[in-house]
């Protein structure tokens, strides 16, 4: 029995007369023996009309927008992943530019030069983007913001606030498979590793051919913007907020974690914006590298 349980006289179990409270003789007076969990009333008659929603404002606009944009993103990504070409611009065109969808290129099917010094999975002959997308894809698909976005727009659960759920049964994230959303923290760790790789890609894009000097091109700026957007997106993550300081109960005894938590909390307030910006920037970066690699134009050198 829990320590704080007391009977009506304030005695705790173990105290004289406290462990087995006697039933009082007064008729109708409850004692600890009568305690029982409180049943929840379900099935009561509800007020209001039996309609899906009474809202008249255009509540459907936001989920419709999300639906369209995420569908376009998924369609583009699937196309880009299975195209398995035009994802790397080699030194022949003055820069090492690699699409963020295909990085790290560590498999046997990578085009020459794109894998740098790392070539781990020699036997892998499918598109390298399956590896390149695995970490960020896991992170993005279990992200607390994107969960809200796709639960509303795709799964209709609910499509909008005070708009009826599109499903009769609902178990949320308490059952398989959605209970797997709890791996988000580990997806975050993986995403951090990916950010490091993509940052290295961005730095490599500043190298000049030949003498190894440094120059700036539009491509190097695009990859830098991509890495920066991904860093902001992952550092504003709710799991990051918990890991850096959210788990602490006494901030006064953990000043560094408190400071970190305050910084991440500020970023976390605009996590949604970072989620969208980074999504668009990844697509732009991939499309840019793809166009240069396909020979549509040469990566303009700024200096």
């Amino acid at each position, binding site marked *: 029995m*829990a320590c*704080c349980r*007391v*009977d*009506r006289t304030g005695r705790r179990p173990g105290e004289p007369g406290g462990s087995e409270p006697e039933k009082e003789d007064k008729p*109708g*007076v*409850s*004692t*600890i*023996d*009568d*305690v*029982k*969990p*409180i*049943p*929840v*009333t*379900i*099935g*009561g*008659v*509800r*007020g*209001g*009309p039996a309609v899906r*929603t*009474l*809202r*008249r*404002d255009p509540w459907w606009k936001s989920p419709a927008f999300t639906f369209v944009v995420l569908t376009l993103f998924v369609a583009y990504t699937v196309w880009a992943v299975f195209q398995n070409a035009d994802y790397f611009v080699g030194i022949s065109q003055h820069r090492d530019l690699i699409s963020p969808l295909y990085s790290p290129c560590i498999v046997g099917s990578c085009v020459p030069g794109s894998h740098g010094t790392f070539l781990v999975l020699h036997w892998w002959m499918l598109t390298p983007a399956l590896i390149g997308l695995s970490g960020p894809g896991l992170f993005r698909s279990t992200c*607390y913001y994107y*969960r*809200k976005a796709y*639960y*509303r727009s795709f799964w209709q*659960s*609910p499509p909008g*606030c*005070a708009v*009826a*759920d599109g499903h009769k049964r*609902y178990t*949320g*994230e*308490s059952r398989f498979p*959605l*209970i797997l959303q*709890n*791996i988000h*923290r580990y997806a975050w760790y993986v995403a951090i590793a990916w950010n490091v790789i993509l940052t290295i890609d961005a730095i490599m894009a500043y190298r000049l051919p030949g003498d190894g000097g440094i120059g700036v091109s539009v491509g190097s700026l695009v990859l830098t913007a991509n890495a920066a957007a991904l860093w902001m997106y992952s550092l504003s993550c*709710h799991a990051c907020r*918990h890991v850096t300081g*959210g*788990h602490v*109960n*006494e*901030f*006064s005894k953990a000043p560094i974690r408190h400071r970190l938590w305050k910084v991440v909390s500020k970023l976390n307030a605009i996590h949604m914006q970072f989620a969208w910006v980074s999504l668009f920037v990844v697509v732009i970066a991939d499309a840019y590298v793809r166009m240069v690699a396909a020979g549509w134009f040469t990566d303009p050198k700024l200096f």
Partner: protein
Amino acid sequence: MADVTMRVWRGDSTGGDFADYTMPAVEGEVVLDVLHRIQAGPAPDLACRWNCKAGKCGSCSAEINGMPRLMCMTRMDELPTEEPVVVAPMKTFPIIRDLVTDVSFNYVMARQLPPLKPRAPEADGTYRMQQVDVERGQEFRKCIECFLCQNVCHVIRDHEENKPNYAGPRLFIRYMELESHPLDTNDRRELLRQRMGIGLCNITKCCTEVCPEHIKITDNAIIPLKERVVDSSYDPIAWLGRKILRRTKRGAVEVAQDAPAFTAPTSEDRLERQTLPVMVGTAVGAGNPSTAASAGPGAGPAEAAGGTGPTAAGDPFGTDAGA
């Protein structure tokens, strides 16, 4: 000025329908003002709950043009006037009459919340807390218990069967306040996971959208609670750490036994209510202020009919399985 038409739900548990009332518009009014004029004029029997008219008592919750809002904080001039203003009762809770609903579900869940269990006091017999330690929970203290978040949450709004296993956003902020309390030694994470439905929430943020106190319920309470539950149940490294350090988690039943529902000699049983009107709601040793409110005016009886709770006094769930 022009007239406004209010389309107000009239009815009780036997049924109802909307009724239109056309009133002259008055500048600066809120929805509740117009309802009061309707009560003073064409419909003196219109039932609505209200108290402070300042957005601080949380009584006048309703659904205005379909959105859960406080009637006293919704200005008429921000609503479209070309169509009638629709005012309906909160949908999630059983209707009592017109705009008044029985919100006792929330008090029932509040009474099952294990209260603060402070660590031992310092040598001089006192407790000391720094401001940085308590300011996170102070946001949650702004809650006025209007239950708009509970009402809008689709987990129970659209799925009545989830009610026995879902504390709801209002209580999640209370759980978070206690879980992050610098003095608290209780561990409610298993209770949250197994019984109070933290896994049922799919963080679609409607609770945050409707909160009149602008509490960041999802970002500051529900998601941190989910992360804490990940710590206790879904994190293999934390699991390994517990094994090495030989720390054990408190089970859901064990934690639940700290709840006021266990220590308070009371029952929501209808028969007992009839015979013991004075005793009902008298909590002994209960530290949760919400408990006292369960007997307050406006809280309808939680009738036993259809109740699903097991009756064994030693085990609130019958089994440890819960959800």
